[in-house]
Protein backbone atom coordinates (compact mmCIF):
# COMPACT_ATOMS: atom_id res chain seq x y z
CA UNK A 1 0.00 0.00 0.00
CA UNK A 2 2.86 2.39 0.80
CA UNK A 3 4.24 2.01 -2.72
CA UNK A 4 0.87 2.87 -4.26
CA UNK A 5 0.51 5.86 -1.96
CA UNK A 6 3.95 7.12 -2.97
CA UNK A 7 3.27 6.66 -6.69
CA UNK A 8 -0.11 8.40 -6.50
CA UNK A 9 1.23 11.30 -4.45
CA UNK A 10 4.21 11.80 -6.76
CA UNK A 11 1.75 11.86 -9.66
CA UNK A 12 -0.44 14.39 -7.86
CA UNK A 13 2.51 16.70 -7.18
CA UNK A 14 3.68 16.40 -10.81
CA UNK A 15 0.17 17.23 -12.05
CA UNK A 16 0.13 20.23 -9.70
CA UNK A 17 3.46 21.47 -11.05
CA UNK A 18 2.19 21.08 -14.62
CA UNK A 19 -0.99 22.97 -13.72
CA UNK A 20 1.08 25.90 -12.46
CA UNK A 21 3.65 25.81 -15.28
CA UNK A 22 1.32 25.29 -18.25
CA UNK A 23 0.90 28.31 -20.48
CA UNK A 24 -2.72 27.64 -21.42
CA UNK A 25 -5.48 28.07 -18.88
CA UNK A 26 -7.51 25.15 -20.25
CA UNK A 27 -4.53 22.81 -19.81
CA UNK A 28 -4.11 24.09 -16.26
CA UNK A 29 -7.74 23.21 -15.51
CA UNK A 30 -7.26 19.69 -16.89
CA UNK A 31 -4.09 19.17 -14.85
CA UNK A 32 -5.99 20.36 -11.77
CA UNK A 33 -8.64 17.72 -12.48
CA UNK A 34 -5.80 15.19 -12.54
CA UNK A 35 -4.64 16.35 -9.12
CA UNK A 36 -8.18 15.92 -7.77
CA UNK A 37 -8.53 12.45 -9.26
CA UNK A 38 -5.21 11.27 -7.81
CA UNK A 39 -5.97 12.77 -4.40
CA UNK A 40 -9.34 11.02 -4.38
CA UNK A 41 -7.56 7.73 -5.16
CA UNK A 42 -5.25 8.33 -2.20
CA UNK A 43 -8.27 9.02 0.00
CA UNK A 44 -9.87 5.78 -1.19
CA UNK A 45 -6.74 3.83 -0.33
CA UNK A 46 -6.72 5.42 3.13
CA UNK A 47 -10.23 4.10 3.77
CA UNK A 48 -12.15 7.38 3.44
CA UNK A 49 -14.39 6.15 0.61
CA UNK A 50 -17.15 8.74 1.12
CA UNK A 51 -14.72 11.65 0.95
CA UNK A 52 -13.03 10.09 -2.07
CA UNK A 53 -16.31 9.93 -3.98
CA UNK A 54 -17.25 13.49 -3.02
CA UNK A 55 -13.80 14.77 -3.99
CA UNK A 56 -13.89 12.94 -7.31
CA UNK A 57 -17.35 14.19 -8.26
CA UNK A 58 -16.98 17.73 -6.95
CA UNK A 59 -13.25 18.39 -7.30
CA UNK A 60 -12.55 16.61 -10.55
CA UNK A 61 -16.02 17.04 -12.05
CA UNK A 62 -17.93 20.13 -11.02
CA UNK A 63 -14.95 22.41 -10.42
CA UNK A 64 -13.36 21.43 -13.75
CA UNK A 65 -16.60 22.19 -15.59
CA UNK A 66 -16.76 25.56 -13.86
CA UNK A 67 -13.15 26.31 -14.82
CA UNK A 68 -13.74 25.39 -18.46
CA UNK A 69 -16.93 27.47 -18.48
CA UNK A 70 -15.19 30.50 -16.96
CA UNK A 71 -12.21 30.20 -19.34
CA UNK A 72 -14.59 30.06 -22.30
CA UNK A 73 -16.30 33.24 -21.12
CA UNK A 74 -13.18 35.14 -20.10
CA UNK A 75 -11.06 33.83 -22.94
CA UNK A 76 -7.51 32.55 -23.02
CA UNK A 77 -5.05 35.28 -22.26
CA UNK A 78 -1.42 34.77 -23.17
CA UNK A 79 0.31 36.10 -20.10
CA UNK A 80 3.96 35.29 -19.80
CA UNK A 81 4.72 37.95 -17.24
CA UNK A 82 6.94 37.77 -14.24
CA UNK A 83 5.13 37.14 -10.99
CA UNK A 84 4.66 39.57 -8.17
CA UNK A 85 7.54 37.88 -6.33
CA UNK A 86 10.75 36.98 -8.21
CA UNK A 87 10.81 33.26 -9.04
CA UNK A 88 14.01 32.34 -7.10
CA UNK A 89 12.68 34.14 -4.03
CA UNK A 90 9.36 32.31 -4.34
CA UNK A 91 11.15 28.96 -4.57
CA UNK A 92 13.30 29.77 -1.54
CA UNK A 93 10.29 30.94 0.49
CA UNK A 94 8.29 27.82 -0.33
CA UNK A 95 11.28 25.58 0.42
CA UNK A 96 11.86 27.23 3.80
CA UNK A 97 8.15 26.95 4.65
CA UNK A 98 8.05 23.25 3.67
CA UNK A 99 11.24 22.47 5.61
CA UNK A 100 9.98 24.25 8.73
CA UNK A 101 6.60 22.50 8.54
CA UNK A 102 8.23 19.12 7.97
CA UNK A 103 10.71 19.74 10.79
CA UNK A 104 7.82 20.41 13.17
CA UNK A 105 5.42 17.71 11.97
CA UNK A 106 7.48 14.69 10.92
CA UNK A 107 9.18 13.92 14.30
CA UNK A 108 5.84 14.08 16.11
CA UNK A 109 4.11 11.61 13.82
CA UNK A 110 2.65 8.47 15.23
CA UNK A 111 -0.47 6.45 14.60
CA UNK A 112 -2.62 5.61 17.60
CA UNK A 113 -5.38 2.97 17.50
CA UNK A 114 -8.92 4.20 16.71
CA UNK A 115 -10.82 5.67 19.62
CA UNK A 116 -14.49 5.08 20.32
CA UNK A 117 -16.34 7.75 18.35
CA UNK A 118 -19.75 8.32 16.84
CA UNK A 119 -20.63 6.94 13.41
CA UNK A 120 -19.89 9.26 10.48
CA UNK A 121 -23.50 10.27 9.78
CA UNK A 122 -24.23 11.04 13.44
CA UNK A 123 -21.00 13.00 13.76
CA UNK A 124 -21.72 14.99 10.60
CA UNK A 125 -25.39 15.82 11.21
CA UNK A 126 -25.44 16.19 15.00
CA UNK A 127 -22.02 16.86 16.48
CA UNK A 128 -20.93 19.04 13.57
CA UNK A 129 -24.38 20.55 12.97
CA UNK A 130 -22.99 24.09 12.95
CA UNK A 131 -20.73 23.14 10.06
CA UNK A 132 -23.78 22.04 8.09
CA UNK A 133 -25.46 25.41 8.70
CA UNK A 134 -22.30 27.21 7.54
CA UNK A 135 -22.23 25.00 4.44
CA UNK A 136 -25.82 25.97 3.60
CA UNK A 137 -24.89 29.65 3.84
CA UNK A 138 -21.84 28.99 1.68
CA UNK A 139 -23.96 27.23 -0.94
CA UNK A 140 -26.21 30.31 -1.17
CA UNK A 141 -23.08 32.43 -1.61
CA UNK A 142 -22.05 30.02 -4.37
CA UNK A 143 -25.41 30.46 -6.12
CA UNK A 144 -24.85 34.22 -6.13
CA UNK A 145 -21.37 33.55 -7.49
CA UNK A 146 -22.79 31.44 -10.33
CA UNK A 147 -25.17 34.29 -11.17
CA UNK A 148 -22.13 36.55 -11.40
CA UNK A 149 -20.42 33.98 -13.62
CA UNK A 150 -23.25 33.55 -16.11
CA UNK A 151 -24.78 37.02 -15.81
CA UNK A 152 -24.63 39.16 -18.93
CA UNK A 153 -22.77 42.45 -19.00
CA UNK A 154 -25.17 45.38 -18.46
CA UNK A 155 -26.31 47.11 -21.66
CA UNK A 156 -25.45 50.73 -22.20
CA UNK A 157 -28.51 52.77 -21.23
CA UNK A 158 -28.80 56.40 -22.42
CA UNK A 159 -28.36 58.84 -19.60
CA UNK A 160 -31.61 60.65 -20.42
CA UNK A 161 -34.59 59.88 -22.67
CA UNK A 162 -34.50 61.58 -26.10
CA UNK A 163 -36.17 64.97 -26.08
CA UNK A 164 -38.68 66.28 -28.65
CA UNK A 165 -35.99 68.21 -30.55
CA UNK A 166 -33.89 65.05 -30.93
CA UNK A 167 -36.96 63.10 -32.08
CA UNK A 168 -37.79 65.78 -34.66
CA UNK A 169 -34.22 65.83 -35.92
CA UNK A 170 -34.33 62.05 -36.22
CA UNK A 171 -37.58 62.09 -38.19
CA UNK A 172 -36.21 64.81 -40.52
CA UNK A 173 -33.09 62.82 -41.25
CA UNK A 174 -35.26 59.77 -41.91
CA UNK A 175 -37.32 61.78 -44.43
CA UNK A 176 -34.14 62.94 -46.13
CA UNK A 177 -32.97 59.36 -46.45
CA UNK A 178 -36.33 58.28 -47.86
CA UNK A 179 -36.28 61.19 -50.36
Amino acid at each position, binding site marked *: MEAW*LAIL*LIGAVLCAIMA*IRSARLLAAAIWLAGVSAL*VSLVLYLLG*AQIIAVIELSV*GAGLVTVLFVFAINIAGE*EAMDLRG*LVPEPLAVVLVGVAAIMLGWMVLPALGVIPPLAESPFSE*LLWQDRGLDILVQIVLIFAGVIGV*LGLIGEAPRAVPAHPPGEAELEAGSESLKEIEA
Partner: protein
Amino acid sequence: MTDTALQIIVIGVLGLVGVGLYGLLAVRNLIKVIVALQIAVKGVLLGLVAAGMASGQPNLGESLAVTVIVADTIVAVVGLALAVQVRRHVGTLDIKALSSLQR
Protein backbone atom coordinates in the same frame (compact mmCIF):
# COMPACT_ATOMS: atom_id res chain seq x y z
CA MET B 1 -2.45 2.98 8.61
CA THR B 2 1.23 2.50 9.38
CA ASP B 3 3.77 5.11 10.42
CA THR B 4 5.50 4.80 7.04
CA ALA B 5 2.26 5.46 5.18
CA LEU B 6 1.62 8.48 7.38
CA GLN B 7 5.08 9.87 6.65
CA ILE B 8 4.57 9.39 2.90
CA ILE B 9 1.25 11.21 3.10
CA VAL B 10 2.70 14.10 5.10
CA ILE B 11 5.49 14.51 2.53
CA GLY B 12 2.86 14.49 -0.24
CA VAL B 13 0.81 17.07 1.65
CA LEU B 14 3.89 19.27 2.00
CA GLY B 15 4.51 18.92 -1.74
CA LEU B 16 0.97 19.87 -2.73
CA VAL B 17 0.79 22.80 -0.30
CA GLY B 18 4.23 23.94 -1.43
CA VAL B 19 3.30 23.91 -5.11
CA GLY B 20 0.08 25.78 -4.31
CA LEU B 21 1.96 28.36 -2.26
CA TYR B 22 4.50 28.80 -5.05
CA GLY B 23 1.66 29.37 -7.51
CA LEU B 24 0.10 31.99 -5.26
CA LEU B 25 3.43 33.82 -5.09
CA ALA B 26 4.62 33.51 -8.67
CA VAL B 27 1.51 33.68 -10.87
CA ARG B 28 -0.27 36.83 -12.02
CA ASN B 29 -3.18 35.38 -13.98
CA LEU B 30 -6.30 35.55 -11.83
CA ILE B 31 -7.65 32.16 -12.95
CA LYS B 32 -4.27 30.55 -12.33
CA VAL B 33 -4.26 32.02 -8.82
CA ILE B 34 -7.51 30.13 -8.20
CA VAL B 35 -5.91 26.96 -9.60
CA ALA B 36 -2.99 27.40 -7.17
CA LEU B 37 -5.40 27.90 -4.29
CA GLN B 38 -7.25 24.71 -5.25
CA ILE B 39 -4.00 22.75 -5.29
CA ALA B 40 -3.08 23.97 -1.80
CA VAL B 41 -6.53 23.08 -0.49
CA LYS B 42 -6.26 19.55 -1.95
CA GLY B 43 -3.14 19.08 0.15
CA VAL B 44 -4.86 20.39 3.26
CA LEU B 45 -7.82 18.09 2.62
CA LEU B 46 -5.54 15.08 2.42
CA GLY B 47 -3.77 16.21 5.58
CA LEU B 48 -7.05 16.52 7.47
CA VAL B 49 -8.15 12.98 6.62
CA ALA B 50 -4.70 11.57 7.42
CA ALA B 51 -4.58 13.47 10.73
CA GLY B 52 -8.02 12.14 11.67
CA MET B 53 -6.86 8.59 11.02
CA ALA B 54 -3.55 9.06 12.83
CA SER B 55 -5.25 10.49 15.90
CA GLY B 56 -7.76 7.64 16.11
CA GLN B 57 -10.73 9.79 15.03
CA PRO B 58 -11.24 9.05 11.33
CA ASN B 59 -14.90 10.12 11.26
CA LEU B 60 -14.08 13.53 12.70
CA GLY B 61 -11.43 14.09 10.04
CA GLU B 62 -13.84 13.01 7.31
CA SER B 63 -16.63 15.29 8.52
CA LEU B 64 -14.21 18.23 8.55
CA ALA B 65 -13.06 17.24 5.07
CA VAL B 66 -16.64 17.51 3.78
CA THR B 67 -16.79 21.09 5.06
CA VAL B 68 -13.45 21.87 3.41
CA ILE B 69 -14.65 20.47 0.06
CA VAL B 70 -17.82 22.61 0.15
CA ALA B 71 -15.92 25.75 1.15
CA ASP B 72 -13.25 25.09 -1.47
CA THR B 73 -15.84 24.71 -4.23
CA ILE B 74 -17.60 27.93 -3.23
CA VAL B 75 -14.27 29.78 -3.17
CA ALA B 76 -13.61 28.52 -6.70
CA VAL B 77 -17.06 29.59 -7.90
CA VAL B 78 -16.87 33.07 -6.40
CA GLY B 79 -13.27 33.51 -7.54
CA LEU B 80 -14.10 32.50 -11.12
CA ALA B 81 -17.11 34.82 -11.16
CA LEU B 82 -14.84 37.60 -9.93
CA ALA B 83 -12.30 36.78 -12.65
CA VAL B 84 -14.97 36.89 -15.38
CA GLN B 85 -16.27 40.24 -14.17
CA VAL B 86 -12.72 41.63 -13.87
CA ARG B 87 -12.02 40.55 -17.43
CA ARG B 88 -15.20 42.29 -18.63
CA HIS B 89 -14.58 45.53 -16.81
CA VAL B 90 -10.78 45.85 -16.79
CA GLY B 91 -10.04 43.88 -19.96
CA THR B 92 -7.31 41.70 -18.51
CA LEU B 93 -6.80 38.91 -15.99
CA ASP B 94 -3.51 40.34 -14.75
CA ILE B 95 -3.84 40.89 -11.01
CA LYS B 96 -1.29 43.68 -11.18
CA ALA B 97 -3.66 45.67 -13.39
CA LEU B 98 -6.29 45.56 -10.67
CA SER B 99 -4.39 48.07 -8.56
CA SER B 100 -5.71 51.43 -9.71
CA LEU B 101 -2.92 53.25 -7.87
CA GLN B 102 -0.35 51.92 -10.36
CA ARG B 103 -2.08 53.39 -13.43
